[in-house]
């Protein structure tokens, strides 16, 4: 294992037991995620792409195989692995500022006397301000989630995930519930943020355009039981923006990925 690899899936199988029998969601997935990579996972619904993300987040374990993070098997959640959910998952009783603070308040550091303590209020405030600024929501710091649009809510969720400075960011169809305009806007913002911080990202989506514009590598999943069908390198140079979509390279990759995914859609329909 090279030190460059941050997370690994090794022969991962995940089965769900329901009343109607056993469903195999993932069947033998192998994937290495390198530091500073932006990986997008695409595939038909039910191919287990969210399952992969949840296992790396530590929300549940694989049935067999291993999910490794920094060389160690994932056991439970950790602030090293931040998650952005499709349904925003903001705490509705907390203001935007308090939502972003939530994770920071859980952090315990060891002070000079060897005692555990929380972060200074000042430190928390500075960090929150920084990320409020990043997602351009300074004016809404004291608003409640119900007062925000879907796009703004997801920006808060992204800021909240970034604020605890995780090693990897796991995004589970974060823009899936947004309208097309807001979606492209948030994509552009996410590209910019990634270009600045190069934070490792695992991004689940079913939108191929979204995958090509964001990713450095695209993982194409096969229909259930989910396996990795193909991995495509997206060599389009950064900085990227929406005009990147006009380039020939982009179109070529998009057509290829689309063809691969379409085969799987047909498979599902059978």
């Amino acid at each position, binding site marked *: 294992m090279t030190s460059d690899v941050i997370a690994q899936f090794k022969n991962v199988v995940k089965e769900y037991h329901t009343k109607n029998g056993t469903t195999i969601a993932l069947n033998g997935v192998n994937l290495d995620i390198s530091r500073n990579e932006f990986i997008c996972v695409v595939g038909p619904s039910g191919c287990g792409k969210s399952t992969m993300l949840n296992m790396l*987040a*530590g*929300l549940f374990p694989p049935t067999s195989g291993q999910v490794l993070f920094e060389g160690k098997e994932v056991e439970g*959640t*950790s*602030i090293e*692995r*931040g*998650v952005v*959910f499709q*349904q925003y*998952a*903001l*705490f*509705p*009783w*907390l203001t935007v500022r308090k939502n972003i603070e*939530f*994770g920071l308040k*859980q*952090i315990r550091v060891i002070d000079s006397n060897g005692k555990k303590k929380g972060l200074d209020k000042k430190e928390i405030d500075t960090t929150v301000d920084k990320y409020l600024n990043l997602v351009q929501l300074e004016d809404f710091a004291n608003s*409640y*989630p*119900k007062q925000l649009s879907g796009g703004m809510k997801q920006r808060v969720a992204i800021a*909240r995930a970034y604020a*605890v400075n995780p090693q990897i960011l796991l995004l589970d169809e974060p823009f899936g519930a947004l309208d097309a305009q807001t979606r492209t806007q948030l994509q552009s913002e996410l590209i910019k943020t990634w270009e600045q911080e190069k934070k490792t990202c695992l991004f689940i989506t079913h939108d191929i355009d979204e995958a090509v514009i964001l990713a450095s590598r695209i993982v194409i999943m096969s229909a259930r039981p989910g396996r990795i069908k193909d991995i495509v390198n997206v060599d389009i140079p950064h900085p990227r923006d929406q005009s990147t979509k006009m380039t020939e390279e982009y179109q070529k990759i998009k057509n290829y990925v689309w063809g691969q995914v379409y085969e799987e859609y047909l498979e599902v329909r059978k």
Partner: protein
Amino acid sequence: MSNSFKKKKGHVLSKWQGALLSLVIAVFLWWLISLSPSGGKVFASPMEVMGSMMESLKSGSLLQNFWASLKRIIIGFLLAFICSLPVAFILGWYKTICTIVEPWIQFLKNIPPISYIPLVVVAAGVGEESKIVVIFIACFLTMTITIFQGVKNVDSTLIKAARVLGANDFTIFTRVVVPASSPFIITAMRLGLSSALTTLIAAEMTGAARGMGVMIQSSSQYFRMDIVLMGILVIGVLGLILQKLVRMLEKRVADWQDTIVEEG
């Protein structure tokens, strides 16, 4: 239905104007009924009821009865509230305990609290305790079930979100489960208070020196329908005031909600 839009656009009464109009119409209808020969037997006229209210206010008997009842409601309700909170949270949080205890509560909640009165009287006598116990039982069951529903229905994504942000079980409980259930806690208070009022009369029938229930019960024996009606009205007004207080509390603690949870 083509003019339904027009109707909505028409002159809209303010909240207070509407309430006042509603009250005036109600009193008017009441007065009409009291004028009719058969209605008049049951319904004393608004003026008579006002008269007997003044009288009993002057003699102090209304206030004595009112405080006796209010004290029982408040004590019974508060005790029930304090007990139902931990019980509901334990039920919602620990699956095993829930599987054992939930059927008991589901069974008990269908039984009208009045039917416990003989048991309560034997156990607690005819004193103050027995009334409070009956009110307590009524409130406790309603509130436990309602809060428990809230705890059970906490959005699991929120718990996951807290977990990936590094929260431990204790933090998830205090910072996520409790606030997420707060709308249900408020609804539980509202339902509990109305159970308390409903059960009050029955509780006071176990024998009491004072109370709104006693006042209504004893006046009916002398066929003083004016006093019976006055008692009913006072209980109704008390109910409205208590609900209003809960609503004010709701505005303070659960204003973040998209929609206010309404009781069924």
